[in-house]
């Protein structure tokens, strides 16, 4: 079984976000970019499925600017086999990406698509669900555990208030939550080897997909700043303020 892992290049989550002065968006020039942390977890899980003998090949796909190939190389260095870049400078939305991924699935015929539950830039949490819908496949979202059996994936999902276990008919789309696994670091020799792995460069038109945005982002602003607070000198004073000034306890 082949496993397809979509990965996204995002602003490094440890970097402070700067909103552009003209409110047209977030300033990403000269910013450190990285693989979306949830995608890293998906890559790790796919490689583990291969190590356990459940997967024969792990194929990475990323849709985004030309530099997204660095993100694919990162995943190849972790242990994935090859990559597909869908180069686009357009701001892609989950629906457009899901349509691109559907086309990739039709070409690659994977038994499983493993991807992050959300990208930490736009925080949409949609692409996996949309891909599953377009394919008519089962979906396992926010998974913290996966066991692949014959034709079935038994998954545990993180839901509000606890955990839920489902059996999914394969092929399926799975989206990863934080608890699923701890992504490995790529070793230097593997980073070198990754440079030789195959990476196909394509464009949305090659897949026959229209990725014109449906939403118009009118402006992006800084969140309101919090007013400066006060220092209290004792626990008694803290409790007094919370009770009588803030009235929250």
């Amino acid at each position, binding site marked *: 079984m082949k496993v397809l892992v979509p990965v996204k290049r995002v602003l490094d989550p440890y970097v402070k976000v700067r909103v552009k002065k003209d409110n047209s968006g977030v300033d990403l020039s000269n910013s450190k970019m990285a693989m979306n*942390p949830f995608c890293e977890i998906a890559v790790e899980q796919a490689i583990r499925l291969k190590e356990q003998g459940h997967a024969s090949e792990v194929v990475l796909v990323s849709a985004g600017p030309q530099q997204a190939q660095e993100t694919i190389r990162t995943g190849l260095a972790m242990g994935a086999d090859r990559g597909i870049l869908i180069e686009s400078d357009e701001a892609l939305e989950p629906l457009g990406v899901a349509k691109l991924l559907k086309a990739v699935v039709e070409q690659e015929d994977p038994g499983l698509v493993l991807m992050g539950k959300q990208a930490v830039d736009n*925080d949409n949490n949609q692409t996996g669900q949309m891909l599953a819908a377009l394919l008519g496949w089962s979906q396992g979202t926010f998974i913290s555990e996966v066991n692949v059996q014959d034709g079935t994936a038994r998954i545990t999902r993180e839901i509000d208030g606890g955990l839920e276990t489902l059996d999914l008919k394969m092929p399926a789309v799975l989206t990863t939550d934080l608890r699923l696994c701890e992504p490995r670091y790529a070793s230097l020799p593997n980073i070198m080897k990754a440079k030789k792995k195959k990476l196909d460069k394509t464009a949305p038109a090659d897949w026959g997909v229209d990725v014109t945005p449906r*939403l118009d982002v009118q402006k992006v602003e800084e969140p309101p700043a919090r007013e400066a607070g006060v220092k209290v000198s004792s626990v008694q004073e803290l409790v007094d303020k919370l009770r009588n000034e*803030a009235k929250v306890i």
Partner: protein
Amino acid sequence: MSVLVIADHDGQQLTTGTRATLTAAKELNADRIDILVAGHDCRAVAEQAAQAAGVTTVFLADGESLAHKLAENMAPLVAEHGAKYDHVFAPASSTGKNVVGRAAALMDVQPVADITGVIGADTFRRPIYAGNAIATVQAGAGTKVITVRGTAFEGDALEGGGAAIEEVAAPGDQGLSSFVGQELSQSDRPELASARIVVSGGRGVGSGENFQLIERVADKMGAAVGASRAAVDAGFMPNDYQVGQTGKVVAPDLYIAVGISGAIQHLAGMKDSKYIAAINKDEEAPIFSVADYGLVADLFEAVPELEKELDNVQS
């Protein structure tokens, strides 16, 4: 203009997130608001929903295929009914996110996720980059599919209404997934994402055992317990307690940060709290830049003292 609100519920009553979603939907000043309640043996939920003022019809889809809200069975139902409306509003809960993304793709619509403000009929405000930026987004032609952040709107009172309840057919089982079991947290504490008070510990707490200090204070206040990523990575607490950019985003009335330095990834998950209190021995800690009330003190002295003080206040 018409709105269909997709209800999330536990089989007995609407979730607080659904009540907030109803409030957000009312801000559209639509001519008609209907509610779709889907599940199995959930007429009580439909009856509760019918109490909401300003709602015309509550559609009840009751069937075994909907018992566990499996996305594969729910999404066609939501897409079929939703397509008849100008807007579909759903709570951004784990069920809402799971089902609505799938339904929107069936409708060929790009949803607007996790809104925190309604600006106009097709324009909404939503946080991006874990709340470090706020985007104003206008949805294009067709049905607007929206998920609503529960902490951003007051819950609807569910009073003063008298909507008709109309049964609609439940879809057949798609045969793509099946429910095996669930394990719900047995804690008596409120759920982290919707708690009114959250007490969180960080690396400064030092060990998993020491977290009992935090838990005891939380229990005294009827609060949920949270943790920073540092505390989770150090193994003090499980991952699902994590508040922050890659964990849960909370906005309680009161957030008490104990032994948390206040790295940007953590602030992203809690800085919309109404009041923030911080206890930290390092007076230079960045958490003090967002805290309404800061106490520079050793947490191992301050937290037990806080526990005692709460006893005094309550008695």
